[in-house]
Each structure stands twice: as structure tokens, then as C-alpha cells.
């Protein structure tokens, strides 16, 4: 799978019009001399036939070497390692916050809370229609410019994390709440809940022990999608809040056409996606005993 992703990206990059050696030396405007171009080609192995380059690329990747960034003149793996932590923290906290909001809303509205239904309906529309940058701008205008409670740019520490996390978590929670609500309603109507109630379990006990499991199953199934949405959102959010991270380095790499860095980030994200989908399967088994029995 990772091999397929690497192959697709490698050949996609070969479609770039123009000479990669020129890009290394600062783009078409740099008027690099023929000798400098030849040297750059030799340094980056660009004078080899395409197939050899491809094999070299795969070999380097197996050793964990993703090449050097054109713009930063640093190993890609170092840039990625430096920025990975910030994005992971942002994504993880956002995911937890989103799950908490979604679960609260879903449980509340499934038990007949009209207000909760209203809130989740609004959040649902927010998910579908509000771009991340727009939400971020509105939050900055409200909490930083008008109320002056929170910093408009992401400062180190938990306070700087609040607005970026809210920006990522709110749309996600709307989507999750919608899915969880359906499955909670399904579970509440099913015989095992009736049986548990007949055994004399409290309604809270039934909810936490039985219904919640069912609500978790579809939500876990969406983990891969949620990961992708968080990473896509992180590109925008990190840019707006000037927060160091993978998303922001990806964007600046795209703007500077820093091909090795773009490739490196894309590969790491694809790896993350695969990791998440694998964990999803494990999580499914943990929550759903029917899968373990097979």
C-alpha cells in the first residue's frame, strides 16, 4: 500500500513541466549557469535514467531517507520530524474534543432533548457548509478582537491551542453527532436494551454499558475519514493561527514547489492514514464482541 502511494507520487512529480535542477537552484528566474545545473543534476541523481531514479528513490525510502528539501536545504525527514508533534497534538486534542461534544449531543438529543437536536442540526449544517478558514476568522474576531480573551495567533501552551482546536473540532463533532445519534436510536429500540431494563438495570447503566458501545461502532469506522479531514483542516488552521506544524510546512512547500518536502509530507500523511485504518479494525474488535467471535 505504501509502495503504491510512493509510486503514484513519484510519477506524479515527474509530470512537472520544467527542469527539476532549475527548481533546486531557485526556479526559472535564477538564470543558473549550465555548469551549476549539471552539478545539481549530478548531486540529486537527476542525470540517471528514470527507472534507475525510481529504484534509488524506493531504496532510499526503505532506509527512511526522504531526500533533501530544495528550499530549506535540510533533510526532509528532519523537517517532518520537527513539525509532526505540533500537528499530532492539534489533531488528537481536536479529535477528543469533537468526540466528547458529539457524544454529549447525541446522547442528549437521542433521549429527546429538543435543544440538543437543534444544536446538532446547526452543527450539522456547519460541518457541511462552513470552511475552516471562515470558522477560524469568526472565532478570532469574536474571542480575540472583540472579547480579547484568547490570543489570535497560536502561542505556546494550552491557551494558544483553544481556538485552533475549536476550529477543527466543531465541524467534525457535527458530523460525528449525526452518525452517533442514528446508532444510539437504533440501539435504544433493540431487544437487548429492553432485556437489560427488564433485568432491573438503571437507565444510566444501560446507556453506558450497552447503548454507548453501539454508538461507538460507526464513529470508529469514520476514523480514517476524520483523520483526513483533520489533516486537511490542519493545513488551513496552522496557516491562519501561525502555528508550526506539518500542514503549514506542506503549504509553504507547495508554494515554493519544494517537491521532496511535499512528497515527504504526503507520504507521512498516507502512512498515518494507513495506521489509523489498521487501528480502526483493532478498535472495532475491542468494542464489538461479535467480530471477535468469528
Amino acid at each position, binding site marked *: *500500500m505504501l509502495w*503504491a*502511494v510512493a509510486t*503514484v*507520487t513519484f510519477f*506524479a*512529480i515527474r*509530470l*512537472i513541466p520544467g527542469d527539476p535542477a532549475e527548481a533546486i537552484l531557485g526556479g526559472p528566474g535564477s538564470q543558473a549557469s549550465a555548469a551549476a545545473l549539471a552539478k545539481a543534476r549530478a548531486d540529486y541523481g537527476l542525470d540517471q535514467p528514470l527507472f534507475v531514479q525510481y529504484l534509488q528513490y524506493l531504496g532510499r525510502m526503505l532506509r527512511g531517507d526522504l531526500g533533501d528539501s530544495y528550499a530549506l536545504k535540510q533533510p526532509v525527514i528532519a523537517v517532518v520530524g520537527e513539525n509532526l508533534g505540533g500537528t499530532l497534538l492539534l489533531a488528537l486534542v481536536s479529535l477528543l474534543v469533537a468526540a466528547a461534544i458529539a457524544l454529549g449531543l447525541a446522547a442528549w438529543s437521542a433521549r429527546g432533548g429538543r435543544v440538543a437536536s437543534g444544536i446538532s442540526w446547526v452543527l450539522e*449544517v456547519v460541518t*457541511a*457548509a*462552513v*470552511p*475552516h*478558514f*471562515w470558522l477560524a*476568522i469568526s472565532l*478570532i*474576531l469574536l474571542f*480575540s*478582537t472583540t472579547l480579547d480573551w484568547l490570543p*489570535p495567533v497560536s502561542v505556546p501552551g494550552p491557551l494558544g491551542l483553544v481556538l485552533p482546536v475549536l476550529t477543527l473540532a466543531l465541524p467534525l463533532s457535527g458530523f460525528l453527532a449525526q452518525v452517533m445519534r442514528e446508532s444510539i436510536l437504533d440501539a435504544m429500540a433493540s431487544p437487548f436494551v429492553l432485556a437489560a431494563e427488564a433485568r432491573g438495570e438503571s437507565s444510566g447503566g444501560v446507556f453506558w454499558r450497552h447503548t454507548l458501545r453501539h454508538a461507538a461502532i460507526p464513529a470508529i469506522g469514520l476514523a*480514517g475519514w476524520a*483523520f*483526513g*479531514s483533520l*489533516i*486537511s483542516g490542519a*493545513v*488551513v488552521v496552522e*496557516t491562519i493561527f501561525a502555528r508550526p506544524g506539518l500542514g503549514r510546512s*506542506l*503549504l509553504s*512547500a*507547495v*508554494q515554493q*514547489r519544494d*517537491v521532496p518536502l*511535499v512528497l515527504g509530507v*504526503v507520504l507521512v*500523511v*498516507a502512512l498515518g*492514514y*494507513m495506521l489509523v485504518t489498521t487501528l480502526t479494525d483493532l478498535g472495532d474488535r475491542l468494542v464489538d464482541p461479535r467480530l471477535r467471535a468469528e
Partner: protein
Amino acid sequence: MRQVWLWIGGAALLFLVCAALAPGVLAPGDPLAINPAQSFRGPSLSHLFGTDESGRDIYIRIIHGTGASLLIGVSATAIGVGLALVFGLLAGLGPRWLDFGTTRFLEVLFAFPGLLLALLFIVVYGPGVVTSTIAVGLATAPGYARIIRSRVLVVRRAPYLEAATVLGRGRWFRLWRHLLPNVAGSLFVLVTLGIGQSIVWASSLSYLGLGAVPPAAEWGAMLSAGRTYLTSFWWMTFFPGLFIMMSAVATTLVVRGLQKRSRLS
């Protein structure tokens, strides 16, 4: 209750279409006319949404930009759904190895979250309106393709198709007369939602400086221009953003409302 929302969404959509077709009627004036003496004016009666750094009226620019923005949304969706139809039909109708190959290929594409696929495309072909539109179309295609494939698999086994086969209808006749119309029914919802989504996506790319560029009167480009003045002159980003959201909310409301209606009847 939700019927009310259907009408509100429909009205908003109608307004946007009118703005796209006849911008001069809703907002007479030149969207590119500059007036430096009037720069950075806040919203007022003479300038409904305020003015930008060159004194251009933002309301006029937004209305005149509707056509371009809707066009980007519609073409990106058309590209996405078109590609998805090819993939979905190949996977759903072709021999087993083709289905296997296409599905694997789509799985690989799924490993790139949407915006990443778009960014990858832009790094190859450079920023701009056309490339960002194609990028959004490409990025949305895998999702559509998966839905179309599963729909094709259902329709393929339907009794009416079996009947058509027994009656001796040719392969293309069955595809054209029976399969496509039935797949298209479920596509309607996807496409309507997709246009709103594509506008949001394309504007995100423009906001990041990778799509349409100023001074074009396009919503995303206006956002990207206003980005520099975000905290001091909020109306420069607020109102274009409002229209982007309005188009996405309108399509969502209309689809939700129509779904609800068809479920009731």
C-alpha cells in the same frame, strides 16, 4: 418546519443564480473601478459591505464574482463526478480483475486526504483558477466513485435489468436506458451537495493563495486579498466568506429538504 428551510435554501439559491446571470441588475457598477479616496470604508448605506484597499465596492464585487465562483463549483463537481462515473462504471460493470484494480487504485487515492490530493496536483501544474478547479474535482472524485460503484452493483442485479437482458437488449442499450438513469437518481443529491462543497474547497485554495488571484472579482480571490487586513478591516473577508457559506448552506438545505419531502410522500 424543515419545509420552511427548503424554501429559504431555494430562495438563496435562486438569488445566487440571478446574481450569476445578471449581476448588473442586482449591483449596478463596475467591480474593478478603483477610487483610492474611498479605501477601507466600513459597511454603510453608500457601500453596503464596505470598500477594499483600492476603494472598490465589496458588494458590487461579490455580486459580479458570483458567476465565476459558481462556475468553479459547477465545473469542479462536473470533473469529479465525470471521473467518478468512469471509475464507478468500470468497477461496477467490468470483469472482476478490472473491479479489483480500480478499487485498489481508489483505495490508494483515499490514503491522500482530499486537500492533500488537491495540493499535490497544484504542485505539479502550478497555482491558478483552472488548476485549482481541476484539483478540487480530482480530490472529490474518489468519494463519488465509491458511492457510484456500490450503486451500480445494486442496480446491476435488479430484476428489470435481468428482464432487459432476457428480452435481448444490447449491452449499451441496457447501460444507457436502464443503468444510468437509476444511478443518476442517487447522483442528483451528490451533485447538489457537491457544488456547494466544491465552492468551499476552491475558496479554501484561493484563500491559501493557490487559486484565483486578485484583482479578479472572485470570492476566493477577494478572501485572499483581504487576508492581509484581517484584524483591522474585517469586512473584506467577512462578506465574501458569507456568500461562500450561503451557497453551501443553500445547497445543503435544498437537498435535505427534498430528501425529507420524498421520504414523507
